[in-house]
């Protein structure tokens, strides 16, 4: 059953993914560069293509609050935000995972103030890595569309919220040809959400009560288990999606990683650019590969270790920055690879922070530099 091919930007592609997932409630607050996602959803609603309650809140904090309770009544819930909006949601992000509400949210990566800017930079979502949300990083509108469906499947299976992330403008506002799967396939992949526990006067359950230390401990432990289970659930969802729709991504992707001297590791839109750099370098005779980390939470520790076993060097490109430690992926990679006897030397480059342009030529230079030099312990600024 083939889908429809359309020319849309990354945000609208995401909205098509949401339409296919049939959420019943979408509480939202506008913010650039996210707004086109909900504008499209509201268009679908107005045209009768979606049966959904769009709730326009007075801030993102209220939007996420409404998401949580709507989700706890046992219906599928979606929202979208970016940057400052995500920052304002922070308190509620923890609440959502603690309440085990499988909300799916798209975050469009944008710089955080101050100073003010609108540029692609992943720091906003990466700074939420410890909130108990599953996180996927996508490089195209097609990938976001497909991943939204997968995210709902995984979130509803393990009962944790999930964030699907793509970057401002490079993805959110760039036009591309996108294939929208047939609704029947989406329905087959993602059956209606019917959780056994929900806010329902018949069932009489409650959320958010005060607990003692032991109960809190147990709660965190089960939350951790759910997050661990998300790894297998994400692999399974991706495999099933591939079987059904014909497209899959893996939780990591290894591109031309046969016998490499060095591997580029990155996330989001940078992977598209890096793939081109890899092709050019391979053509020039350099054995270089690409490791795309798509699922960032839970971090695919074993898969990453396996992918990098016996590889001499890895160069991590971070379009994000945590002052005091450097790039988020760089930190995570160092932690993931720690203690491996046959693991790679890890170079951490801050590339594209604040949305600066990183063309393939620049990535090629960085690869050559990483090959020529010993890795520094601290991150290196690369423009």
């Amino acid at each position: 059953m083939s889908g429809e091919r359309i020319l849309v930007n990354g945000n609208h592609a995401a909205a098509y993914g949401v339409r296919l997932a049939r959420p019943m409630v979408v509480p939202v607050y506008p913010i650039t560069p996210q707004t086109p996602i909900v504008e499209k959803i509201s268009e679908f609603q107005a045209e009768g293509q979606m049966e959904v309650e769009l709730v326009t809140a007075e801030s993102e904090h209220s939007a996420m609050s409404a998401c949580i309770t709507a989700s706890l009544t046992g219906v599928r819930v979606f929202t979208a935000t970016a940057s400052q909006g995500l920052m304002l949601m922070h308190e509620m992000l923890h609440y959502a995972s603690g309440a085990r509400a499988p909300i799916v949210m798209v975050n469009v990566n944008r710089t955080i103030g101050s100073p003010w800017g609108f540029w692609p930079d992943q720091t906003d979502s990466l700074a939420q890595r410890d909130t108990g949300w599953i996180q996927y990083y996508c490089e195209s509108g097609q990938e976001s569309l497909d991943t939204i469906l997968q995210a709902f499947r995984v979130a509803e299976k393990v009962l944790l919220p999930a964030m699907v992330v793509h970057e401002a403008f490079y993805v959110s506002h760039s036009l591309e040809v996108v294939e929208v799967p047939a609704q029947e396939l989406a329905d087959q992949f993602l059956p209606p959400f019917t959780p056994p526990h929900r806010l329902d006067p018949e069932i009489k359950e409650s959320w958010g009560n005060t607990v003692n230390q032991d109960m809190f401990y147990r709660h965190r432990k089960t939350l951790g288990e759910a997050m661990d289970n998300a790894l297998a659930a994400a692999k399974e969802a991706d495999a099933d999606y591939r079987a059904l729709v014909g497209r899959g991504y893996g939780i990591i992707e290894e591109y031309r990683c046969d016998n490499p001297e060095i591997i580029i590791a990155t996330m989001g839109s940078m992977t598209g650019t890096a793939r081109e750099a890899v092709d050019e370098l391979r053509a020039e005779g350099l054995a270089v590969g690409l490791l795309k980390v798509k699922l960032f939470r839970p971090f695919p520790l074993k898969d990453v270790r396996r992918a990098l076993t016996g590889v001499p060097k890895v160069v991590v490109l971070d379009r994000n920055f945590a002052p005091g430690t450097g790039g988020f992926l760089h930190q995570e990679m160092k932690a993931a690879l720690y203690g491996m006897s046959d693991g790679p030397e890890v170079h951490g480059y801050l590339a594209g922070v604040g949305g600066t342009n990183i063309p393939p030529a620049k990535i090629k230079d960085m690869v050559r530099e990483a090959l020529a030099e010993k890795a520094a312990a601290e991150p290196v600024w690369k423009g």
Partner: protein
Amino acid sequence: MSFDVMDYFRQETLPHIWCPGCGNGIILRDFAVALERLNYPRDEVVIVSGIGCSSRAAGYLNFDTVHTTHGRALPFATGIKLANPNLKVFVIMGDGDSSAIGGNHLIHAARRNIDLTAIIFNNNIYGMTGGQFSPLTPRDKKATTAPYGMIEQSFDICRLAEGAGATYVGRATTYHNQLLTQLIIDGAQNPGFSLIEAVTHCPTSYGRRNGMASPSDMVRWQKDNAVWIDKVRAGKAEVKDGQFTIGLLHRHEAPEFTQAYMEVIKRARGQE
């Protein structure tokens, strides 16, 4: 000495980002004129703004300015005023900024009666993000998030501020711009929280959707629907449905927050 408005602008930041036909520039000029007449030493003036089209105003003005986050201009301004109560602090906000995401701060600044002068650019819409309704979008008016008309009741932000404790409250429009200048001057001189609502026109995001596509239609609407409060009080005019009052709407005296703060410190130290 003649008044040159450009003297008040950071000219390297111009041209501004506002759409052709936007009313914000009129308010900005009126504000510059008010500052000229107030004649405060320039380094005693601080201008704080939130986020939105209107809040870009702060960046254009050649004073100490802070462009903050959406909804939080008043807490930022409160910090400045408490750190140095001698400063003259002006706060520029949009209608969404001040009454939706930042509504909580507005009522508390008014309740404390802290000596800030808030100028609210009311275009009845979220301008910057493309025309979603705000708490000041009148019932039945259209917005991208209300394509069939606004179903929620809107705030009268002046009455809200008055109810919350503001000691000076006035409203003018981009048409009644001399009044606007005067209200800003008087509001600045009021020792307490002053709120001035500047009704402005946004043809791009509001007018086009509500039968007023051209800026002149919108300004004419202001002219036709603004009713001077003095005339209403004198029984010479009435406010019909859809109309609104302009002028000095409310004033009362009450202890000002930073003063009260200094006094309580003195009392605690036995210096009274």
